[in-house]
């Protein structure tokens, strides 16, 4: 056996420096020798159980007596009353039982011998013989046709079990586009009011949404609802910022995407999709609160720090007849976190 390379000394090989003195003499507790002390402990323990009973009753009283509005130290009195009585009762029962075990139950240590986990050689041989007999008698080795076709059939069962999961969801779609389109107004994300360039001051950041998320004039409901609205929002949320035009260094082709220093960027981080909202007026940096990716909005949303890789996409802006800010198209760059088909989808977008 390879074990012989290293010999782990057992006690027999090298004499132990100190011989095992054996189990120490049992120490009696006060409660073992003094009956009065034992009775006192008994009383203490039953006092705990008695208090626990009272607290359980107190819980019931509090349940009916303390209403939701009452506060205690600035926080729900009901929660405190129920929790304190229930917790106190449980704790007293637990401490009482443990005290009983420690102080009054016999504390004579017992010794039990261990046995090697390994079975005896006979048992092992018998098991091997049984397994062998089972294999022999089944003929699985002699009849490869049965064995192989059975393995094939069981393997084929993987198909139904995988295929059944197919309808968990649709195939990926629509990741490259958002609801933005040419002419859609950029509106305030809370009130839904459209924005004029004069509403935005230098250094200001406005959280905005596409107008389609709010009811059109004369209507009660918007086009989007419930989870559809959330899914659309998860891609279309934007921020509108205004910087001094001379601070901005637009890339080629993006010179006319802003209006007098007003630029619009996706609010969704290209890292894992948190809404990016921490805006530093002075540096024009936008910081994602989740993982601290930092984007320079004066420099085309470029990543200047953190785990994000792609710049935060920019939305080209324009102004409609009534003087409100509108989008000139959907995002030319794909918003939200990267996904495997992103490069291909982006190529398609660029080609259009």
């Amino acid at each position, binding site marked *: 056996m390879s074990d012989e*390379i290293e010999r782990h000394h057992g006690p027999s090989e090298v004499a132990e420096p100190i011989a095992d003195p054996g189990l120490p003499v049992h120490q009696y507790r006060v409660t073992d020798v003094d009956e009065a002390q034992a009775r006192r402990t008994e009383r203490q323990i039953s006092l705990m159980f008695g208090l626990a009973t009272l607290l359980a009753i107190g819980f019931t009283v509090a349940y009916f007596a303390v209403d*939701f509005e009452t506060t205690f130290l600035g926080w729900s009195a009901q929660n405190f009353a129920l*929790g304190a009585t229930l917790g106190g009762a449980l704790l007293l029962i637990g401490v009482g039982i443990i005290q009983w075990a420690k102080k009054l139950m016999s504390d004579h240590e017992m010794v039990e011998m261990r046995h090697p986990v390994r079975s005896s050689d006979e048992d092992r041989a018998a098991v091997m013989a049984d397994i062998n007999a089972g294999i022999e008698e089944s003929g699985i080795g002699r009849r490869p046709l049965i064995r192989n076709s059975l393995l094939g059939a069981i393997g084929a069962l993987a198909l139904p079990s995988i295929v059944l999961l197919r309808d968990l969801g649709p195939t990926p779609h629509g990741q490259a586009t958002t609801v933005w389109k040419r002419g859609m107004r950029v509106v305030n994300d809370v009130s839904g009011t459209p924005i004029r360039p004069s509403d935005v001051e230098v250094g200001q950041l406005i959280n905005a949404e596409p107008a389609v998320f709010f009811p059109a004039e004369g209507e009660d409901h918007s086009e989007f609802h419930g*989870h559809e609205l959330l899914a659309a929002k998860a891609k279309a949320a934007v921020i509108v910022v205004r910087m001094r035009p001379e601070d901005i260094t637009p890339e080629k082709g993006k010179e006319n995407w802003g209006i007098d220093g007003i630029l619009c960027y996706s609010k969704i981080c290209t890292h894992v999709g*948190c809404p990016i909202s921490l805006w530093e007026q002075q540096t024009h940096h936008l910081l994602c609160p989740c993982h601290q990716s930092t984007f320079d909005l004066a420099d085309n949303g470029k990543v200047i720090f953190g785990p994000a890789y792609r710049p935060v996409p920019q939305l080209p802006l324009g102004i409609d007849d009534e003087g409100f800010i509108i989008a000139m198209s959907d995002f030319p760059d794909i918003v939200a976190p990267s996904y495997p088909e992103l490069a291909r989808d982006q190529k398609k977008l660029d080609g259009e």
Partner: protein
Amino acid sequence: MATDTYTKVEDTKVGKKAAGPVGWVDDRLGLAGVARKNLRKVFPDHWSFMLGEIALWSFVVLLLSGVFLTFWFQPSMAEVVYDGSYEPLKGLEMSQAYASTLDISFDIRGGLLMRQIHHWAAHLFIAAMIVHMLRVFFTGAYRKPREINWLIGVGLLALGFIEGFAGYSLPDDLLSGTGLRFVDGLIRSIPIVGSYLEFFIFGGEFPGELIIPRLYMAHILLIPALLLGLIAAHMLLLVYHKHTQWPGPGRTNENVVGFPMLPVYAAKAGGFFFVVFGFTALLSATIQMNPVWAYGPYNPSEVTAGSQPDWYMGFSEGLVRLMPGWESTFFGYTWSWNVFIPGVGGLGLLFTSLALWPFIERWITKDNREHHLLVRPRNAPTRTALGVAGMTAFGVGWAAGGNDIIATQFGLDIYALTWVFRFGFFIFPVIAFLITKRICIGLQHADSDRILHGYETGVLERSPDGGYSERHAPLPVAGQYTLTARDRAPELAPAQTVDANGVEAPHNRRERVRVWLRDKYYAGAVDKPTADDVHHAEEHLGHFEGHPSDHGDDFRGVSDAGVPKVH
């Protein structure tokens, strides 16, 4: 069968009452044979053996409080208009999941308490599992024959993380939605199949309307069932192997010394359940946990600054924050290393290395014996140092997960801090390893000194020529024995590259790597004194005490420990 003792039991009060029911049950189940072996099973006593128990009982608390919550919670993402008693959110559109969570908090008496107990117990469950696992690691309790139980434990911890995250996501508040958004980004980052997985798991584009019901199923059925099964297996193996124990007088690798299950451990463990439950109830009564009503319903275009996952996900979160923004495109696919490596790789690496460690160590040491005695961490310096290095890496990741909080609280530059953590993730564990190993070896030297030179009595003696020395006295025998009750280091044979006939052995290179690792593994550790050392020291101690001044010509002063340097 000792029939005479059985007769005696029948004559006792309990015997007369219980014989009937016990007989009835045994006639039908025949379990007396099993019960006879286990009812009075001996368990050793040590405070650190209680850590796993905390995990077990907090799991029971989770089951109880969880069942209560299911009576009202509605795992649906359908939008409703909130009409409950919490004024600030009245009239707002939100998912049914969030609305029913608010109902539990504000309209069901005791609902808020149960929600808080559930969340507190979840924290306790995972924290206790981690501390219990560290105890098992640092004392070597995972060694043969307990490797399978270690693997079950690693599985339990991993499932606990997933279970906790699923539960964190269910209320569908702004914070839990932000967590799901992260998971969505994480799934997307999986190479090639990421989009498909995302659409299948969320049932369409994020957030869809299926993820909450699906997580609910996983949270209350699938994962708890797995946890329950694995916990049962964990406990059965514990009973079957018998608990490990600390070495000491009369406590050897061949026996187990302690108190019987009935009545002492049944009472102590049973009582401890009430203590754990009571403790979580008191925490929930006094300390607010996850006030979902303050966050508002989920909205993918909003986030609160300082968004944090529950603490046990902090390691993963931190790695995601530390990772540089790497992304590449090849074979027509986008590969998001910036999310995939830390998000999937971090926890993957953690759990894989935990699962493999017992087998790696056994391969390195070739130690094939059964171990039922625990090892003090100092007596396995390399293992202990590796453990501390791992904890340090975990800690750096964890701290990095709160880098924004640290930066704002201490007025530090967040970018500089991130750079410190980026390098620190690799450097700090190495430093921790080196320091820990030195501390362990130092402690081993101290143990040796205490055996060979006794302990410091605090009695100073002045010799006629003015020198001071402290008198040492031998430790009690039981203490000496306990200090020496550990394995002697094995003989480290050089790698055998050729066999007895001079033929090159197969797996030559692997064996050389193993021997190199083995030498590193044992390097520096102080072996325990031999019988000769102790014999010699005894003479010396007696000698020193009897003749404090007569040092002879070769006396060269006294060492720091008060022992003459001649020795």
